[in-house]
């Protein structure tokens, strides 16, 4: 076991890949019977400080349909200077540059430790990064002020050659021209009218007469810059202008009458931003950053009318099919998102408002383009400010932790096909021999576009074993998968990262034990959760839960050890032991439960769930609970109501929230002010410890979690109480005695009950 754990960890660290199964069932039928699909979580740009990119381009297989990259798994004939593609078995000549190749003089990509390798492509123009700010001006003054400061701050963080642009919107949409001096100039668009890219281009005066002679020449950066110069300018040129512009941002001047929402043309503003970039810098890394303080209330993409008496849609409305604008708005944003994705740009949404802002409708924009979605109460909170700042954080090389316009291509060996991917990507519709007909997630392709990536962006990639039992795979042979990620590095370089992995095939009939041992329950839980969440976007909540339950029961039936009809006899091996618990918490998680969450919140949670890496995803599924006491060092404790004790301080991390909870006694002590007495310094330290730990988590996480400091009986304690397993409720409190834990007032089933049912069902022969 340990070996597998180590193996898994090693692989994750080296390749950023975790498979649900690390031994692959060798036939299709068997694979499907294993319930959890063969899939992996891939973090394409996992930070690898130990992996400097190589300064040349990859060698690819010459077969046009294959084009796999030379990798350590390839057989190489050093004499003939040939290599055989391990995917299509095509024999390829090495390029002339590899003339000196020999067994002792191998290029990096042939060495086993470089199963993941990054190439730098030197060709092509290097275009600066582009940041287009799209700013809502229907904000309260202090909010606007805070936002201005944040934007100013971001300017100072960007490299001077970065191109920036500014679009502001309220009732109208203004595209600010940055080049002119003296008078500040902006192009104004009606907030209620959708425009095609062509119209936007015409209206902004960007259409240039066709210049065929010049087009044939290699793209000239100057020329390109000229076209767009008016709206997108390098920071170093227009630093002052831009600062002034931001400084002079006024609240939307159109009067808002009592009982109305301000008219906010988010839909058109985004459309124009997308159109502007589409025309000026297609296929160049660019971020559209949308800062909005409320729901779109007019024009295409409107989410709610401007009458305050009509509240924004709730889940209830959606279920009752009562959300008038939702479908149309979603269509609008989806269309925008697809266009943006096609251009290789991404959209971030920073929505700060107390009420919903329409993230549900706009989620496509971020989900399909890999942009960030940040939700806060106000721009004037540290949550937003720090989150925003974190976007511009830099890695060990001093580069931004962001990459643009990536395409991920997956190549598989013959026994496998790609069924789909779930993550911040769109399909590129690349049909090929390794594309499965069976779609899971975004399928039907072997290539995806990920417009924006950061080192933690993780995709779930699902495979299908297609080998028929009639054609058994030779013992000891391995299946291989190659992930080729081409992207624009934040240093504006074009890079290609290639990860090639291989796993052994195993016969389920004979090697079930081995396969069981090779099960990665964490990865499996996350991958199943992604599937569930993906389904939840389009299906009714209960159906998804039922599906998850059935999958879990089938898995238990398959891999549990039990006597038929005897629940007490049910056992799961260690490799599966945590899986049901993950599923229990997943069922209760906001990703699948919409109760108590607004549609926006659901979208927000799901957005992050679909892109975080395995560790973070697990935290989201099952929050971590630490307990601090005088009895010893902090220890992780069960996420259970029984862990809530009077003399403990609890620190809960749900990814989205960090909750520090003082037990009843501790809280009393604190009120009594013991921490200020020198003789109780240890108490002071005890109080401080979780704060420090929380700080640590806060520092590292994006987006900033909501930080909650509460105590027994505090209103905010609900954050904790809603997460823990309700092992003690008002129904069963007394049998457990008064000493332990806190009762949760809920009718939700506890883990114990859940497990009991699971066992019963698993051993039953009925299903």
């Amino acid at each position, binding site marked *: 076991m340990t070996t597998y754990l180590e193996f898994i960890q090693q692989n994750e660290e080296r390749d950023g890949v975790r498979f649900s199964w690390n031994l692959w069932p060798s036939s299709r039928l068997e694979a499907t019977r294993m319930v959890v699909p063969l899939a992996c979580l891939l973090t394409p740009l996992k930070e690898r400080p130990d992996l400097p990119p190589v300064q040349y381009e990859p060698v690819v297989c010459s077969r046009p349909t294959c084009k796999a990259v030379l990798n350590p798994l390839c057989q190489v004939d050093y004499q003939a200077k040939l290599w055989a593609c391990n995917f299509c078995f095509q024999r390829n000549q090495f390029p002339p540059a590899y003339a000196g190749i020999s067994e002792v003089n191998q290029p990096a990509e042939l060495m086993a430790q470089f199963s993941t390798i990054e190439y730098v492509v030197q060709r092509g123009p290097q275009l600066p990064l582009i940041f287009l700010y799209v700013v809502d001006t229907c904000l309260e003054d202090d909010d606007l002020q805070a936002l201005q400061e944040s934007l100013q701050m971001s300017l100072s963080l960007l490299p001077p050659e970065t191109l920036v642009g500014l679009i502001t919107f309220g009732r*109208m949409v*203004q595209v600010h*021209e940055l080049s*002119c001096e*003296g*008078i*500040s*100039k*902006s*192009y*104004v*668009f*009606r907030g209620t*009218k959708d*425009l095609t890219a062509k*119209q936007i281009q*015409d*209206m*902004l*005066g960007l259409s240039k007469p066709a210049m065929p002679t010049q087009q044939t020449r290699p793209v000239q950066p100057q020329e390109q810059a000229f076209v767009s110069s008016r709206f997108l300018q390098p920071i170093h040129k227009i630093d002052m202008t831009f600062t002034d512009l931001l400084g*002079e941002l*006024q609240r939307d*001047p*159109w*009067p808002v009458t009592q009982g109305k929402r301000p008219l906010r043309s988010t839909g058109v503003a985004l459309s124009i931003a997308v159109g502007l970039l589409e025309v000026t810098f297609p296929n160049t890394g660019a971020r559209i950053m949308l800062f909005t303080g409320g729901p779109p209330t007019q024009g295409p993409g409107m989410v709610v009318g401007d009458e305050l008496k009509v509240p924004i849609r709730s889940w209830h409305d959606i279920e009752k099919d009562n959300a008038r604008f939702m479908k149309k708005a979603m269509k609008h944003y989806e269309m925008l998102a697809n266009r943006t994705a096609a251009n290789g740009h991404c959209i971030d949404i920073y929505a700060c408002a107390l009420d919903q802002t329409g993230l549900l409708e706009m989620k496509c924009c971020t989900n399909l383009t890999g942009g960030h979605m940040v939700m806060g109460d106000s721009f004037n909170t540290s949550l937003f400010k720090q989150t925003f700042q974190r976007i511009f954080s830099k890695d060990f090389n001093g580069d931004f932790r962001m990459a643009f316009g990536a395409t991920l291509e997956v190549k598989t060996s013959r026994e496998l096909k790609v069924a789909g991917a779930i993550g911040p990507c769109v399909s590129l519709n690349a049909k090929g021999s390794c594309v499965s007909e069976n779609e899971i997630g975004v399928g039907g392709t072997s290539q995806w576009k990920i417009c924006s990536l950061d080192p933690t962006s993780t995709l779930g990639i699902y495979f299908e074993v297609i080998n028929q039992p009639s054609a058994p795979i030779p013992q000891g042979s391995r299946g291989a998968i190659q992930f080729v990620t081409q992207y624009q590095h934040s240093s504006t370089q074009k890079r290609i990262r290639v990860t090639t992995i291989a796993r052994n095939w195993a016969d389920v009939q004979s090697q079930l034990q081995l396969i069981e041992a090779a099960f990665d329950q964490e990865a499996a839980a996350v991958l199943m959760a992604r599937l569930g969440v993906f389904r939840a976007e389009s299906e009714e909540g209960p159906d998804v839960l039922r599906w998850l339950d059935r999958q879990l029961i089938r898995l238990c039936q398959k891999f549990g050890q039990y006597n038929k009809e005897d629940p007490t006899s049910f056992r799961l091996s260690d490799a599966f032991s945590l899986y049901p618990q993950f599923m229990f918490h997943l069922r209760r998680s906001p990703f699948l439960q919409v109760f108590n969450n607004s549609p926006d919140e659901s979208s927000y949670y799901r957005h992050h769930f679909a892109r975080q890496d395995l560790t973070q995803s697990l935290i989201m599924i099952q929050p971590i609970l630490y307990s601090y006491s005088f009895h010893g060092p902090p220890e992780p404790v069960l996420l259970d109501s029984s862990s809530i004790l009077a003399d403990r301080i609890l620190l809960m991390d749900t990814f989205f929230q960090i909750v520090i909870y003082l037990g009843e006694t501790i809280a009393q002590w604190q009120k009594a002010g013991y921490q200020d007495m020198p003789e109780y310094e240890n108490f002071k330290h005890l109080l401080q410890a979780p704060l420090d730990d929380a700080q640590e988590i806060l520092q590292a996480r994006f987006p900033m979690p909501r930080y909650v400091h509460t105590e027994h009986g505090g209103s905010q304690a609900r954050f904790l109480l809603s997460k823990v397993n309700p092992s003690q409720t008002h129904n069963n409190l007394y049998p457990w005695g008064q000493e332990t834990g806190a009762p949760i007032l809920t009718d939700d089933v506890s883990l114990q009950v859940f497990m009991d049912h699971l066992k019963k069902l698993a051993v039953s022969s009925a299903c």
Partner: protein
Amino acid sequence: MNVNQSAPPVPPFGQPQPIYPGYHQSNYSGQPGSAAPPASYGAYNGPVPGYQQTPPLGVSRAPPSSGAPPSSTAQAPCGQAAYGQFGQGDIQNGPSSSTVPMQRLPGSQPFGSPLAPAVSQPAAVLQPYGPPPTSAQVTAQLAGMQISGAMAPAPPPSGLGYGPPTSMASASGSFPNSGLYGSYPQGQAPPVSQAQGHPGIQPPQRSAPPLASSFTPPTSGGPRMPSMTGSLPPGQGFGGPPMNQPNHVSSPPQALPPGTQMTGLQGPPPPMHSPQQPGYQLQQNGSFGPGRGPQPNYGSPYPGAPTFSSQPGPPQPLPPKRLDPDAIPSPIQVIEDDRNNRGSEPFVTGVRGQVPPLVTTNFLVKDQGNASPRYIRCTSYNIPCTSDMAKQAQVPLAAVIKPLAMLPPEEASPYVVDHGESGPLRCNRCKAYMCPFMQFIEGGRRFQCCFCSCINDVPPQYFQHLDHTGRRVDAHDRPELSLGSYEFLATVDYCKNNKFPSPPAFIFMIDVSYNAIRTGLVRLLCEELKSLLDYLPREGGAEESAINVGFVTYNKVLHFYNVKSSLAQPQMMVVSDVADMFVPLLDGFLVNVNESRAVITSLLDQIPEIFADTRETETVFAPVIQAGMEALKAAECAGKLFVFHTSLPIAEAPGKLKNRDDRKLINTDKEKTLFQPQTSVYQTLAKECVAQGCCVDLFLFPNQYVDVATLSVVPQLTGGSIYKYACFQVENDQERFLSDLRRDVQKVVGFDAVMRVRTSTGIRAVDFFGAFYMSNTTDVELAGLDANKTVTVEFKHDDRLNEESGALLQCALLYTSCAGQRRLRIHNLALNCCTQLADLYRNCETDTLINYMAKFAYRGILNSPVKTVRDTLITQCAQILACYRKNCASPSSAGQLILPECMKLLPVYLNCVLKSDVLHPGAEVTTDDRAYARQLVTSMDVAETNVFFYPRLLPLTKSPIESTTEPPAVRASEERLSNGDIYLLENGLNLFVWVGASVQQGVVQSLFNVASFSQITSGLSVLPVLDNPLSKKVRGLIDSLRAQRSRYMKLIVVKQEDKMEMMFKNFLVEDNSLSGGESYVDFLCHMHKEIRQLLS
């Protein structure tokens, strides 16, 4: 006959009724009495009298005379009126023998008619009626008359004696003719008339029914004639009169002379000739006019020679073959006379139906209950009582209203009356506003509406006792009870959306395309605006104007400017979505000038720089206006857009236009399309503008065709103005443009106005001309209205009017003042009503008439070919004059052209209208020029149309230098120019200085600062500033002329025999124009011909 005489006919005529019965009877009796005559008589009478007298007659004769009945009615009144004037005449007539009266009657018919009824004499009665009908009919009547006279004379005359005498008197009244003729013995005269009547009658009689058959009748007439003559002494009389007067003399020779006269006047004499008698008759009719001599006017013309009647006619006719221009009515003379006669005393408006002095006369007005002529002028101050009369006379009944006219400083502007929360007092039924004509009754507790007769309660707070005359005791303390013009403060009920209006806004919208930049226009304009903004109109003593301003520039896209006072720099906002225009900002777009001065100045400084390098040549137009309108809408205020535009809007946008100018269309049926807008976009837009109270003033600076016809739609419908500066060059046109701009910006305007003209029962406003929009048939909606804007309103009868109560007009204008105050301006005017056509003709205003006719024609060309419009005008004019000739003028030779005194300038002015560029374009006149002129005329007032159509030509060097008064004008004809003089010509738009080739060098030197004529630069637009009396005087004169006109007139110096002279000559409207327009003399002949055709 029977039918005619039968009672039925009678009723129609209200007044005559009592008389008629008797009359008829007498007729009857008379007729029967004379058995023999009856037959012939019947024939004659039948057609004639019955017809004219009353509808019933018409019935009998129905087919032929359908047109006649009305005329007859009309005549009756005329007769009466005339009568009244000459009361004494009756007596004289009385004494005269029965035959005489009879005879006279024919002559005097017009006058006598009313009386005649009273008289018992049928003949007399008939006669009066007779005249009024169309010429043919008239003659017929005459014949009838005579016959009847012949027949009846004996019996009734004596018996009825006096009744008729009066009629006779009337005849005698007409006699004044005789007076005129002086030499005529009364006795003779009548015979003459009879005789005349006879001959004339016969032929006409026959002819009358079939109008066309002028020839056939003669034959039939021939035989009768003799009988007639035979029966009567007329024959003698006949001879007599000719003897006396040269004209007549000639006439006996069988009309040849008259004919010749005619020929002299007209081309068509020949036809006249063949039927000599008819011609003759005509003459007689003509003499009629003179007969009417009693009219004061007439007296003078006669002796004066200007009249055409006999005197001038006879001498000239044959020999010269051409009229002596000096003998035809001279506008200059008329203007001069009016100035001398009426300029000295103030015009007091207390009396109903007073004709005000001419617009060319300087006079003061004292408002004593009727609106000043500066506000309202009418075509006639005496309205026919019935529509039949009105139709017969063809004189349009129209009022030219200038509700916000500027008054000279000596006259107080209208008082503002505040009735508090209850608002102005109005009639409950017709909603007319309280005015001096309202009758208070029941001790002041109620008042009767003078318009609809509804009786209304007087609200307690308005109650006041009446004095012994029935007037309210406080009448003199209340403007609305004592003045013709005053204002009410409107309450919130009179405001849009029941909210008091916000102060209006001005938005300057500047074309910044390549053309505008290149000509320097933008720089000039921006520079000017900086200072001009300090002179926005303000109300009363307000310290600063309440008006907010905004700025937009545009080419293919629009640029709005945020000039909020808190900004350090203006912000430009570009709207490229011209297809769906909107306003990008609210706060900061319309600002107070003083608060945002720094930002505005900065903006105006920068605009020329920003676009200095523009390459954009395409412009949009409709979106520009729409943007301004939307801005006002967003700001919830009314206002005005100043659009400075250079080129045809060809950029892709709503209202895009194409160049459709096509000179080939001129004089075709499709010519009208040149004046119609290309697209309906602008109408729709204008409608929206009007709803918002958005007035558009358009300044055009075209280098080529810009389609003024289409671009002017919005300004036109929103009460705006258009200024056009073709081929604008800063050096040449700067002064003119800036001057116009200054005046346009500074002038006082009312916004969001609705004007309604209410009339007393009997007439109704039916048609409106001017720059405004109408969404229904009664309310004139004006987004903006300035002091120069004029609305011409035409009235029609819908019932009969009453001589006693007259006709009342009340023009109520609801508007927002430039300070944002909602007000009602009321103008009241009372007119007389007449039953005699002569009264109508005596109280006409030709200038106003021309104003109406020009507007009518200029609108007509939108729908009909220009030729049709011209013909209509001529026909109408001919009908007016023919009607006069037939009904009001004393008999005279057909060759004589007799014009009513008040309308003697009608032909010359009408000719000017016909020759104007719009109706008769010269080769060098562009379509845009015509459309522009058409647009201008539409909202011109009477003074402007007067000088526009008949330019003023002032000799500069003739009067002594010391004299401070304006030199007397000369007639606009080349013949009047002496090559040793310098003349100045102006028509309100253009200003020329014409220099004769042999002007003294000294004069040239002192005016142009060059040594000789040849050194004067042709086309010079400025006179050098020289320190000598002549130069000062001329420049002073030019300045004062410019000050008189609402637009700056650019000066052009033209040298005799120079190329430029062609342009100048175009304004010498009495001459033949290059493009074929007739000279005054030719046109007069033409007119005469038309009239004669109508009369025959």
